[in-house]
């Protein structure tokens, strides 16, 4: 699930005929100044980041003259949104919006395939807050026009907009299939000067399909900035999400990792991360995971919890011993290894003075306890 920047998303959608504002990608203040002049001196300057929430974070600003266009560039490329700071911005003419709607195509588990989503109102966080209308694409991937017209009439979408929306949805349906997309979203699609314009757009591509999407794979390789989570996945095949707590968690299996996060929460603490090593339960994988958490000043202590199935935990124990000897970590590490060959773990740990906590709840309690005794480096 790799989100492309607005700029890259719009390049793709333009190929399918989606109507877009004129836009200029700029990477310095001089270019921002020139672009503002070229576009008529009333512009939106939009930080290019592959994340949502730019508008409310000050990463999209309006500018009314070339000088303020340049200032807006400096401003939107200095704010952090979701931990990322943009290097480039898109400058577009400011659109006077008469009406806006939300359009998307995504994969839907209940429908067992792609669905079109729409709302007669667009805007910030519409996808999270509002109930969206949902319409399955046909099995051949096409957009069901008549069903859409019926729902759109119920929702009070003015008939004069509908032909344009239908054409855009048909374009999105073609793009969704051709790009192996997970999500294509236009929010808002605005009426400005009597015509539809995709003011903002995002395409989320399926990492698993990049082997047959060479152009997208190439773009993602050079796209910048990217989330540390995505870089860690690409480099080390670890699933990592940073969380607000201070107890680092290394686990195996998504469900199990979430279960341990929840146990940490139940005991009044918070995990510093979701970090799932199941795709790479090797010395390289666990080593990268330890490096990530040992190098993170927000992590006070670490809990390693693995319930091995196919992964034999005696081999995990040997891997961990090797890594701990090599790295000599300065943070307390609590270990819980269970599952296949768990009976051999004590014998591997004992010579190194390490202890296994076979009961998960006890391991979590011990790990939380180790945080208060953690020595804070001077």
């Amino acid at each position: 699930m790799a989100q492309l920047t607005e700029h890259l998303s719009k390049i793709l959608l333009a190929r399918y005929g989606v109507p877009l504002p004129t836009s200029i990608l700029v990477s310095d203040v001089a270019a921002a100044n020139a672009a503002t002049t070229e576009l008529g001196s009333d512009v939106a300057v939009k930080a290019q980041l592959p994340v949502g929430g730019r508008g409310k974070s000050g990463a999209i600003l309006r500018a009314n003259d070339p000088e303020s266009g340049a200032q807006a560039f400096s401003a939107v490329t200095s704010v952090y949104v979701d931990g990322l700071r943009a290097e480039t911005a898109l400058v577009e003419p400011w659109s006077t919006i008469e009406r806006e709607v939300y359009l998307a195509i995504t994969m839907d588990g209940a429908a067992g395939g792609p669905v079109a989503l729409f709302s007669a109102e667009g805007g910030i966080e519409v996808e999270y807050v509002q109930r969206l209308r949902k319409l399955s694409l046909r099995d051949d991937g096409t957009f069901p026009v008549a069903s859409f017209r019926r729902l759109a009439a119920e929702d009070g979408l003015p008939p004069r907009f509908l032909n344009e929306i239908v054409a855009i949805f048909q374009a999105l349906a073609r793009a969704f299939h051709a790009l192996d997309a997970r999500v294509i979203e236009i929010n808002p699609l605005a009426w400005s000067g009597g015509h539809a314009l995709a003011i903002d757009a995002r395409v989320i591509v399926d990492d698993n399909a990049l082997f047959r999407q060479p152009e997208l794979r190439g773009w993602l390789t050079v796209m910048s900035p990217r989330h540390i989570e995505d870089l860690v996945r690409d480099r080390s095949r670890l699933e990592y999400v940073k969380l607000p707590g201070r107890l680092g968690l290394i686990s195996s299996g998504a469900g199990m990792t979430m279960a341990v996060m929840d146990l940490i929460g139940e005991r009044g603490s918070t995990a510093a991360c979701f970090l799932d090593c199941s795709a790479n339960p090797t010395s390289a994988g666990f080593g990268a995971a330890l490096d990530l958490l040992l190098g993170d000043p927000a992590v006070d202590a670490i809990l390693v919890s693995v319930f091995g199935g196919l992964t034999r935990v005696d081999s995990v124990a040997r891997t961990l011993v090797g890594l701990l000897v090599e790295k000599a970590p300065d943070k307390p590490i609590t270990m819980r290894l269970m599952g296949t060959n768990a009976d051999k773990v004590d014998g591997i740990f004992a010579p190194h003075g390490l202890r296994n906590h076979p009961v998960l709840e006890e391991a979590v309690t011990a790990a939380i306890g180790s945080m208060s005794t953690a020595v804070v480096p001077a």
Partner: protein
Amino acid sequence: MTILATPTTRVLVQGITGRQATWSVEDMLAYGTKVVAGVVPGKGGATHCGVPIYDLVDEAVTATGAQASIVFVPAAAAAEAIREAFDGGCFLVVYPGDGLPIHDAVRLRRLAATYGATLIGPNTAGLISPGKVKLGFMPSHCFSPGRLGVISKSGSLSYEICQRLTDAGIGQSTLVGVGGDPIKGVTIGEALRLFDNDPETDAVLVLGEVGGLEEYQAIDYASRPAAKPVALFLVGRTAPPGRKLGHSSALIGSLQEGYEAKAAALRANGLCVIPTLADVAPAIAGVLPFIQQPEEA
């Protein structure tokens, strides 16, 4: 009885010579699963783990009467392999691998439906009917025979919990790993209907997650007359919205997909939502009409 596979089901293994497949085939044979054929293009005529290899699925089916397939091929080649299994006449296909492109999952789900066949996966440990048969790579020692059906989105969580159930004397009829992808073969709702028809399953435990709406299918099932008791344990109550946690379906994209909304809706419809890991075995003991002893000591 078991659901989906029985000890007499004749199983073929696609990609049988791979490392993970080899480990799994030896493990399944030791468990009693009738592995009758392997399929590896270009290696037809050889044998592996004592199992004859064929170039193509339909050759294996013709020669051995194979009825089900477990597919150990990389995700980029998986769609074609799974399609070949269904086209070759397999009524059940298990795809444990992760990383299947989601557009392929959509097509394969539809293909299975066209054939009236069943796909388990992707991204699953498979299925096991303890003491009888397994098509998957879960650690057998966590499981014991009994009358509780288990449906899980997560492999490792199902091991942890089935180990706790086994330790508490609560055996399992079948564990179905439905997997953590948003588009899949058998879903939670479909697995519940399979357990409904199984006279040897008295109640069902669903191991769900935040993200997606699949757990709500339990409400549809529970509203049937004479539905079997269903309990759910949901992980991810401390997960932040908008972030994918490992499983690609574990992403809270709307309020309905979060923990509080899911748990509240399930409870409001009379389902048992187990609050914490330590409560799972005791709660199941309360849901089941009696605690079963494992049939084999």
